[in-house]
């Protein structure tokens, strides 16, 4: 290991970077789901072949999601910094980054959720309706539980995407591996640091991916099990 890497490690910068990346990702994902999941369900439920069509609302939400989804993250990030300042009182540091990450991830999560919930078999929903289940019950007891596996897979993909965003957030004042790669690697012409950050990111992605898929598989009841 080169001098600089040892220094980074000994001073705890690298460990802190890993930790910051992981917790920024998890916290951002959590808050994106708090808003994105219901939003996705609403998108699905209010669509014209949903269980409670509200065409106008659906159009508006759909348009908003599309607009936010089409702004490149790097631009959105800068654009929402004032909003971050409003919400957490600063436009710098990890807390501000979490706000931007959440705002960027919400439309993404909403789309993921929408497509998962849309997959639920029409016939099963109809069966629930025929039993006298109202919309709320159908959402909580049919749509979400039946879409569970697909939702978990979607969450894995969302987490990885948010992780990617968080690295970019390193360029405008966020912490984490992205910041280390930029400040200690790129700006000091030290490729080794960049590669180490890449490798660490890959490992984190792998861990997320594998655990997520394992959970998805273990909880899916559609497969024949002994």
């Amino acid at each position, binding site marked *: 290991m080169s001098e600089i890497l040892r220094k980074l490690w000994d001073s705890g910068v690298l460990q802190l970077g890993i930790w910051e990346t992981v917790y920024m990702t998890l916290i951002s994902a959590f808050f994106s789901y708090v808003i994105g999941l219901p939003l996705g369900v609403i998108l699905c439920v209010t669509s014209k072949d949903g269980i409670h069509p509200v065409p106008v609302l659906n159009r508006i939400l759909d348009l908003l999601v599309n607009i936010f989804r089409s702004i490149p993250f790097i631009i959105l990030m800068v654009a929402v910094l004032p909003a971050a300042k409003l919400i957490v009182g600063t436009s710098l540091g990890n807390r501000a980054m979490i706000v931007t990450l959440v705002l960027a991830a919400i439309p993404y999560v909403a789309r993921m959720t929408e497509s998962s919930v849309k997959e639920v078999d029409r016939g099963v929903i109809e069966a629930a309706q025929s039993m*006298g289940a*109202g919309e709320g019950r159908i959402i909580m007891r049919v749509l979400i539980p039946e879409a569970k596996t697909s939702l978990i897979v979607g969450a894995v993909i969302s987490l990885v995407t948010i992780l990617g965003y968080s690295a970019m957030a390193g360029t405008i004042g966020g912490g984490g591996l992205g910041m280390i790669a930029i400040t200690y690697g790129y700006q000091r012409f030290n490729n080794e640091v960049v590669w180490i950050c890449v490798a660490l990111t890959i490992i984190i992605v792998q861990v997320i991916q594998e655990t997520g898929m394992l959970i998805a598989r273990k909880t899916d009841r559609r497969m024949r099990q002994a």
Partner: protein
Amino acid sequence: MIELRDICKVYRNKKQEFTALRNVSLTINDGEIFGIIGLSGAGKSTLVRCINYLERPDSGKVIIDGRELGSLKKKELLRLRRDIGMIFQGFNLLEQRTVLKNVCFPLEIAGAKRQDAEKKAAELLSLVGLADKAGSYPSQLSGGQKQRAAIARALASDPKYLLCDEATSALDPDTTRSILELMRRINKELGVTIVVITHEMKVIDSICDRVAVMDNSIVTEVGAVSEIFARPQSDIAKKLILPEVVTPVSGEGECVRIVFDGEDSGTPFLSGMVLSCNAAVNILHAQTKDIDGRAYGEMILQLPAEKRSAGRIKEYLNASGIRYTVTGGAGYVGDTA
């Protein structure tokens, strides 16, 4: 009692309009097993979905036990649906729940306590013969077992009515028979009124009391199964009742379908006819059963091409009081009833 009055349903796409139900009126009495038969696309599913307002008719009334569904508030409609169980061709079980939990589902909706729901569900699973599969998931069941689970689920809220949309169409003949048997038992033992949708005459024949025949969005005839079976009026009813084998015959003599409806099976009817008319007939199809010395069923005969012999046979049939139809032709020729 379920009353349908002048139900119309139109599906509108971007530009097209399609009338799936045209002035359909039916009365389904309490305690009976009522069949609705028709070819694919006739509007059967649309009709049955109107009964519990899964589909809202464009005009007409659905009246269940004196309550007009269109006038109910949403809450009341949801409540009323608990009195109407429904089972489907595709079973529509919740894949992520065990069989027991599936049966509990309607009870959860009704707000039952968990223990009570599970107790009830277990009882129903024994009733349908699926007690040993309570802990299995739907993906681990066979088609017949899935349908039994679906039936148990549909019965969980103690419905007065059970709607079955092609409930046996995805099942093999043996399994179909056992499911139909179960439905009959439910009708007899629990007193549940059952509406059976099917495109198979044998389903109607084996369990229904009365039947409505549907074709092209209208009901062409309604009546007791034995009556429709013996005297189909509409072309579609004849087509559904007559076995397929009969249609492609060489053009020689005309074909008649004779129906045995409790005649004495001791007398050798066919031989008697052939002997006394001195004319041979070709048996194209025969399906009869002997119940207590009485013959039930049908037979399709091709008469001699020669007019006079054919005439003699028809006279003989008339004289012996056997009902018959000339098949393929329009209308009824010699109904003696």
